[in-house]
C-alpha cells in the first residue's frame, strides 16, 4: 500500500492518482518487486475515515502485527532501490513503524502540516458528494474483503512461517529466488528478470480477477476438506499428489475467458502448446505484478507445479501457486503473443444436405432429355400460325429485293449461340438467296468468332465481321454519323440510314434497349428487326406494340415457324421433342411445388387446430 502525501490515505501500489483526493501519485509509482499486502489481511471492516483515525492515534496491540507487515511492505516500496533485509527479528515489532515515524517527523517540521493535511482531507471529503464517498468506501471494502479471503486461505494452508522479507542478499527479489528454487535448471530465467515488466492495463485483468475469486472461493472450501485428511508433511513432502488432488477438484478453467478474441479451438491448442514449453520460472518474474494484480500474492497461495522441484525439503510451502494462476498467466501470455498478428478468418459452418433435391431434379431432367434425344425420333414439323410480330417481320423480309443492304448485328453470348443460330440461320439463308447485301457487325468481342460459326450454320459464304466498340456510345455515334467516315465507325460500315433493314440478333435486354433507344430515334420508319432469345420476348412486346420495331421472332418455336413461312428448312440441331420433354418436366415440378406448399399449409393448420 502507498499513502497519498496529500490526503494521507492509502492507495493501491500501481495507482497513479489518489482514489480519495484525486491528486497525482506519480512520484510514488513503483512496479519492481512484489507488494506484500498480506499485512492488511486482518484489518476489520472499517471505513476510510476510521482508517485515518486509527493512523492518527497510537496503535493498539491488536494491530501491531498488521502494521509491521505493512511497514515491511511500505519499507520495501519506499526504498525503491535498496531491498530491506530479508529477516525481521520478532522483538523489533514493538517499535513504531518507520513510515509512521516519518509522518510524525514531517508533521513536526512543517508548522501544522499534519493539521493542514487532515483539514485538506476533511475539506475534500466534505466537498465530495455523499454517494461518491459511498462508492469509494464500497470499492475499498470489496478490495479489503478480497484480501481477507486470500489471507484466510493462506493461514489455513500453512503454519505461520516467518515472513521472508522481499529482498535477498544478492539483490535478487525474494519471490524470484523461491521460484528459482523450483526450477534451478531454467538458466534463462535471469534474462527475463532484467526485462522491465510492462504493466498490463488493469481493465484487461479485472474480469479474470473476479473469476479467479469465485474459483478461489470454491477451491478454498475444497482445500480445507483435503487438508483435514492429510497432515502438513504430506502436503509439503510430496506436493504433487496433494496438488493433483486440488487440481482434480478444481472446476475446469474457462479456456476462453477472453471472449471471442480467442482463436478457433484447433489453433489455440497449438498456440497454448507452445506456451507450455516455456519453462515455468521464465514466465513468473515477468508476470509477478500481474499475478499481484489478480489479487493472488505470489507468496500467499498454493502453486500447482508440473515439474518435480529439485528437492522437496528446500521447497517452501507458500509457493504452491493455484492452477488458476497458471491458467491466467497462460491466457495473458497468449494474448500478448497474439498482439498484432492477423486474426485467422472465422469459418461459417458448412451447411450440408441442402443440395440433394437440386441434384435429384437436375439428374432427372438430364435423364429425360438424354432418353428423348436417344430413343424418341424427331417429330415432323407441323404447320403453326405465326404470331403477329413474326408475321410482320416476314413481311419486311418479303419486301427486300436483290441488292438491298441488310446490316446483321450480332449481340449474343456464346451460351445462347445454339438458340440464336437455330432462329437466324434460316432467315440469313433466305436473304442470301434473295440477293440481299448482308454486312455483319458486332459490339461484343466474342461476336467476331460467333459470326463465323453462324455463317457456317447458315451455309452462306463467310465474310468479315466489323467490330463496333463502345456499346451504347458506339451505336449512338453510328446513328448520328452522316458523312460515312468516322473514327468511331469501323471501316466498311455505312450510315445506318442507308440500310434497308437492321437485323438485330440479341439475347440481352441492355443491348436491345441500346439499339431501340440510341439508334431508333434517328432512323425513319422503323428499320429494326429483331431475332431474339426466348428470354426477351416479354421485353420486345411493348416496343413492337409502340411501333419501335418492324417485327421480331423470339425463341426456337417462333424461329421454326418463321423459317416455315419463309420456306426454309429449320436447322437439324433443333430437336423439338426434347425441348417439349424439358418443358413438361418443369410443368410437373411447378405443380409439385404448389401441391407441396398446400400440403405444408394444411399440416401446419392441422397441428394448430388441436391446440386451439
Amino acid at each position, binding site marked *: 500500500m502507498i499513502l497519498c502525501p496529500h490526503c494521507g490515505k492509502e492507495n493501491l501500489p500501481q495507482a497513479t492518482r489518489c482514489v480519495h483526493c484525486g491528486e497525482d501519485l506519480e512520484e510514488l509509482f513503483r512496479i519492481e518487486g512484489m507488494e506484500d499486502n498480506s499485512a492488511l489481511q486482518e484489518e476489520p471492516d472499517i471505513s476510510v475515515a476510521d482508517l485515518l483515525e486509527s493512523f492518527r492515534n497510537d496503535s493498539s496491540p491488536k494491530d501491531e502485527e498488521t502494521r509491521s507487515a505493512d511497514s515491511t511492505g511500505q519499507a520495501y516500496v519506499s526504498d525503491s532501490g535498496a531491498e530491506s533485509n530479508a529477516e525481521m527479528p520478532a522483538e523489533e515489532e514493538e517499535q513504531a513503524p518507520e513510515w509512521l515515524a516519518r509522518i510524525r517527523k514531517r508533521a513536526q517540521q512543517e508548522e501544522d502540516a499534519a493539521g493542514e493535511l487532515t483539514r485538506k482531507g476533511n475539506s475534500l471529503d466534505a466537498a465530495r458528494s455523499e454517494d461518491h464517498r459511498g462508492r469509494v468506501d464500497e470499492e475499498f471494502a470489496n478490495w479489503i474483503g478480497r484480501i481477507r479471503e486470500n489471507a484466510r486461505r493462506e493461514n489455513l494452508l500453512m503454519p505461520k512461517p516467518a515472513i521472508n522479507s522481499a529482498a535477498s542478499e544478492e539483490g535478487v527479489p525474494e519471490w524470484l529466488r523461491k521460484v528459482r528454487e523450483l526450477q534451478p535448471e531454467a538458466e534463462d530465467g535471469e534474462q527475463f528478470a532484467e526485462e522491465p515488466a510492462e504493466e498490463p492495463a488493469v481493465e484487461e485483468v479485472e474480469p479474470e480477477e473476479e473469476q479467479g475469486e469465485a474459483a478461489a472461493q470454491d477451491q478454498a472450501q475444497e482445500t480445507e476438506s483435503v487438508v483435514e485428511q492429510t497432515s502438513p508433511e504430506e502436503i509439503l513432502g510430496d506436493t504433487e499428489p496433494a496438488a493433483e488432488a486440488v487440481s482434480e477438484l478444481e472446476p475446469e478453467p474457462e479456456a476462453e475467458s477472453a471472449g471471442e478474441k480467442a482463436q478457433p479451438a484447433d489453433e489455440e491448442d497449438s498456440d497454448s502448446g507452445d506456451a507450455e514449453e516455456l519453462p515455468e520460472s521464465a514466465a513468473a518474474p515477468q508476470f509477478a505484478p500481474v499475478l499481484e494484480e489478480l489479487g493472488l500474492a505470489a507468496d500467499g497461495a498454493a502453486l500447482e507445479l508440473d515439474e518435480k522441484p529439485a528437492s522437496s525439503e528446500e521447497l517452501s510451502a507458500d509457493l504452491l501457486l493455484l492452477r488458476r494462476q497458471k491458467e491466467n498467466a497462460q491466457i495473458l501470455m497468449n494474448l500478448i503473443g497474439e498482439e498484432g498478428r492477423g486474426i485467422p478468418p472465422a469459418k461459417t459452418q458448412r451447411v450440408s444436405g441442402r443440395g440433394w*433435391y*437440386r441434384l435429384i*431434379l*437436375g439428374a*432427372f*431432367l438430364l435423364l429425360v432429355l438424354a432418353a428423348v434425344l436417344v430413343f424418341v425420333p424427331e417429330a415432323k414439323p*407441323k*404447320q*403453326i*400460325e405465326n*404470331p*403477329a410480330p413474326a408475321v410482320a417481320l416476314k413481311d419486311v423480309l418479303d419486301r427486300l429485293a436483290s441488292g438491298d443492304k441488310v446490316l446483321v448485328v450480332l449481340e449474343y*453470348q*456464346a*451460351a*445462347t*449461340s*445454339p438458340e440464336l443460330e437455330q432462329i437466324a440461320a434460316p432467315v440469313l439463308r433466305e436473304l442470301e438467296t434473295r440477293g440481299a447485301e448482308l454486312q455483319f457487325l458486332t459490339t461484343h468481342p*466474342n461476336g*467476331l*468468332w*460467333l459470326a*463465323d*460459326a453462324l455463317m457456317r450454320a447458315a451455309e452462306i459464304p463467310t465474310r*468479315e465481321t466489323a467490330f463496333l*466498340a*463502345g456499346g451504347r*456510345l*458506339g451505336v*449512338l*455515334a453510328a446513328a*448520328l*454519323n*452522316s458523312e460515312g467516315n*468516322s*473514327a*468511331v465507325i469501323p471501316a466498311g460500315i455505312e450510315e445506318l440510314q442507308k440500310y434497308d433493314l437492321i437485323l438485330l440478333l440479341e439475347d440481352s435486354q441492355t443491348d436491345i434497349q441500346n439499339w431501340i433507344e440510341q439508334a431508333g430515334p434517328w432512323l425513319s420508319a422503323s428499320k429494326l428487326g429483331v431475332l431474339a432469345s426466348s428470354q426477351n420476348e*416479354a*421485353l420486345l*412486346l*411493348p416496343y413492337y*406494340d409502340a411501333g419501335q420495331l418492324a417485327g421480331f421472332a423470339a425463341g426456337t*418455336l417462333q424461329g421454326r415457324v418463321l423459317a416455315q413461312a419463309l420456306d426454309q428448312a429449320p436447322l437439324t440441331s433443333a430437336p*423439338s421433342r426434347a425441348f*417439349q420433354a424439358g*418443358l*413438361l*418436366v*418443369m*410443368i410437373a*415440378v*411447378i*405443380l*409439385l*411445388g*404448389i401441391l*407441396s*406448399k398446400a400440403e*405444408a*399449409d394444411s399440416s401446419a393448420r392441422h397441428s394448430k387446430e388441436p391446440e386451439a
Partner: protein
Amino acid sequence: MKKTIPILVAAAAALFILAALILGEPLAGWLEIVLNWAVIVASAALLVAIATLILTHLRNIVRGKRGFIFSIILISTFLVSFIGALVLGVDNSAYLRWVAAIQLPLETSLLGLAALVMTAAALQIFRSRGWSLLTLTFGISALVFLVISLGLLQALNIPVLTTVINYLQRLPMIGARGLLIGIGIGALLMGLRVVLGLERPWGE
C-alpha cells in the same frame, strides 16, 4: 476544390452531349469526337481492370495464398489467349477456333446448368415466397406459358384457341410496359442526379 473538379467534368461532359443531341447539326462533329474519347477511356478502364485482376492473382501465387492453384490456371490461360491473339492476330481463324472451342462449351454448359438449377428453384417458389397475389399469378402464368411454348395447342389449328393463345401471348406486354416505364423514370432521375453532381459514383 479537389471534390468539385470531378463534378464539373461530369456535368460538362453530360451537358455538352445533351446540348449536341438537342441542337443536332452544329455540334455533331464535336459530339462524335467526345463519344470517341469516351469509348477509348472505357476500353482503357477495362484493360486496367484486367491488369489489376492479373496482378491480384499474381500476388496470390507469390504469397501462396489459399486457392493459388486457380490463380495459376487463370493467369496461364490469360497469357495463352492474350499472347496468342497478339502473335497470330485477332482475326486468325485457327486462333478463333481455339477460343471458340473453350468458351463455347463452358458458356453453353453454364446456361444449361442454369436450366437444371431452375428446375430445383421452381419446386421452392411457393415455399419460400408464400401465397401472395404476385407469386400466385407468377406460378399460374408460368404454367400457362410453358403449355403455350410446347406448341401442341397451336398445332391443333383451332381458330378460337389460336386467337386466345395470341391474346394470352400479348397480355404480358402490359406488365412489361409498366416495368419499363417505372425503371425508365428511376434511371432518368439517377442520370439527372449524376449530371447535377448529387450522385457521385466515383467516390465521395
